[in-house]
């Protein structure tokens, strides 16, 4: 099933404590992150434009920095966040790496998965993406999310993990 996944060697996420190479997420995930960031930044941009319009301070003192920061948050940050994410689906475990400043490297053995969700938000549906969530019985890290997978891949991964669970329990 690894063949069906997009492989982009130019944006290989940095290794943390991993042993296996990481698979990057679907490139469209960047677009989803960008739209989310844009929705987040929009109110601030509008507010700064309003403050400009009231004309209390010299021109550009609000709008220019806010727009610059917004551009950084919308264009640069999602790309870096995307590059920081990755996963490996091994023979009997799923590894999820994420985080730009605060990195997290999680490994969930299939034998510990209680149930699996494949969710699609409205934005993800636009791009045909999905989020795979595996739930464990642990109190910490009870659910591990893996966003930005092509929907078909997410479903395929779910089936694979489920097959493992069945094989190991029977």
């Amino acid at each position: 099933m690894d063949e069906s996944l997009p492989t982009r060697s130019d944006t290989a996420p940095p290794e943390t404590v991993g042993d296996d190479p990481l698979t990057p997420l679907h490139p469209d995930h960047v677009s989803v992150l960008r739209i989310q960031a844009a929705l987040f930044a929009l109110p601030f941009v509008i507010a700064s434009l309003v403050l400009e319009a009231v004309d209390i301070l010299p021109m550009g003192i609000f709008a220019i920095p806010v727009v610059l920061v917004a551009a950084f948050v919308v264009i640069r940050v999602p790309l870096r966040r995307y590059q920081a994410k990755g996963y490996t689906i091994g023979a009997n475990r799923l590894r999820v790496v994420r985080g730009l400043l605060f990195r997290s490297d999680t490994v969930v053995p299939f034998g510990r998965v209680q149930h699996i969700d494949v969710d699609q938000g409205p934005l993800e549906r636009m791009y045909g993406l999905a989020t795979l969530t595996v739930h464990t019985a642990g109190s910490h890290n009870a659910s591990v999310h893996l966003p930005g997978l092509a929907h078909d891949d997410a479903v395929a991964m779910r089936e694979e993990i489920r097959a493992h669970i069945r094989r190991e329990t029977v």
Partner: protein
Amino acid sequence: MPPTAEPRRTAPVGLVVKGIAGLRQSVPALLALIFVMRDEGPILWIALGAAVLVLAINFLVAWLQWHRLTFHVGEEDIRVESGILSRAARSVPYERIQDVSLEQGPLARIFGLVQVGFDTGAGGKDDLKLAFLTEDEGEELRELVRARKDGTAPVGEDGETAPQEAAPVLFAMGPSRVLTYGVFEFSLAVIAVLFAATQQFEFLLPFEIWDFDAWEERLAGPGAWLSGLGPTAQIVGGTIAATSLIAVGFATGIVRTALREWGFLLEKTAKGFRRRRGLLTRTDVVMPVHRVQAMRIGTRMVRRRFGWHGLKFVSLAQDSGSSSHVVAPFGKLDEIWPVAEVARFERPGENVAWQRASSAYRFDSMALAFAIPALIALAALAVTVAAPVDEVGYPVLALIPLALGAFLAAGQWIEWRNTLHATDARQILSRRGWLAPRIDIAPRVKLQSVDFRQGPLARWHGYGTLHLGVAGGKLEIPGVPEARAKELRRAVLDSIATTDFSELNEG
């Protein structure tokens, strides 16, 4: 109680218990009603009549509820149907039942009834409860659930159901032990509650509590002799006040502990650990050995000087309260470890290689602890330099935050020194704390996930925090160097890879 029996009802006597419990709530309201309307004559009687009518209706509803609630102990599940107008049917398969607990309040004990709880690990209030069954029925039901569960499991070491054999006692606390325990549970919570209550109900008091002038006036009359007695008497008075405060603290601790822990008995039955405790409300919980996920031995600052520790298991079933899976609340280490060993934990020997967090982690945490007070000190210095004041000693004030920073940094160093972790053949071990050290042990196969987290500083210095997912608890090891984290993770994953979790909890 044969499994294929007809749907059954709970014990009718339970209605009386529930009725009395309900009365307890309405009696104060009734008394208040009588008190308020005592001069109203006929209106009082009408009100009383209405109250009695409401009570009667309540009782009728309770009776209907009782009548319409039936449970059915089937081949594969327990089914409960309930509801007067809207019906609800719930089925709980035997395999999903983690624990069967029996609980008796004081009233239920008088009537020989128990509340049976089926813990499915769904968390607290969603769990199925049957109130009330007779003690025998409860016991029988529990045995039956245990037997059913074993029947469905692929391998059972003890297939036959031995109902009431003499079980070896693992840990017990006699009255003197409970009292000793109580002494160490010194608590001033009552004072806090009283204090809060005086603030809450201040308006009911005929005088102003916080009006000190009024107090002085009041004392000036009969209390004048007190102020006239001189310093010796005041010291004596203060001592008496402090002594009574301490006495209240000890009394609270002893009473609370005795209520909870009286007659503590932990036995090893064929079905697992069975714990009974409580003075007025007696609880009876059975926890299967293989459902124990991890353990913790903890202590407190003072009791540690006397060698007292407590043992707690972490289990899949998360029932109410923090002290839910305490299996040996108060004992010497030599009494506690054998209990842990029954649950297949191994006491770490001398040869276990304990490791500390990395020195970079130590440096970072000390530096962070020192940084904020140091910044405050700098700011203070800057202020004194910028706006010099005549008085000498202002620059000296800057030393206070510096000293605080040094103190905090020293605290971090002590914490680093006392934070240790290790692995042995099967387990992962963690020790923390200086004055009240605790040790957590989890078998590696029972872990759920491994998560390695790094903040910006940690990434720069090549360490991180290892979070291990434990069902019903958590275990984290801070400041693990990357290479060591990799090693630990591989050890955990290798142990896990061979066993499926559901298998683990059945067999």
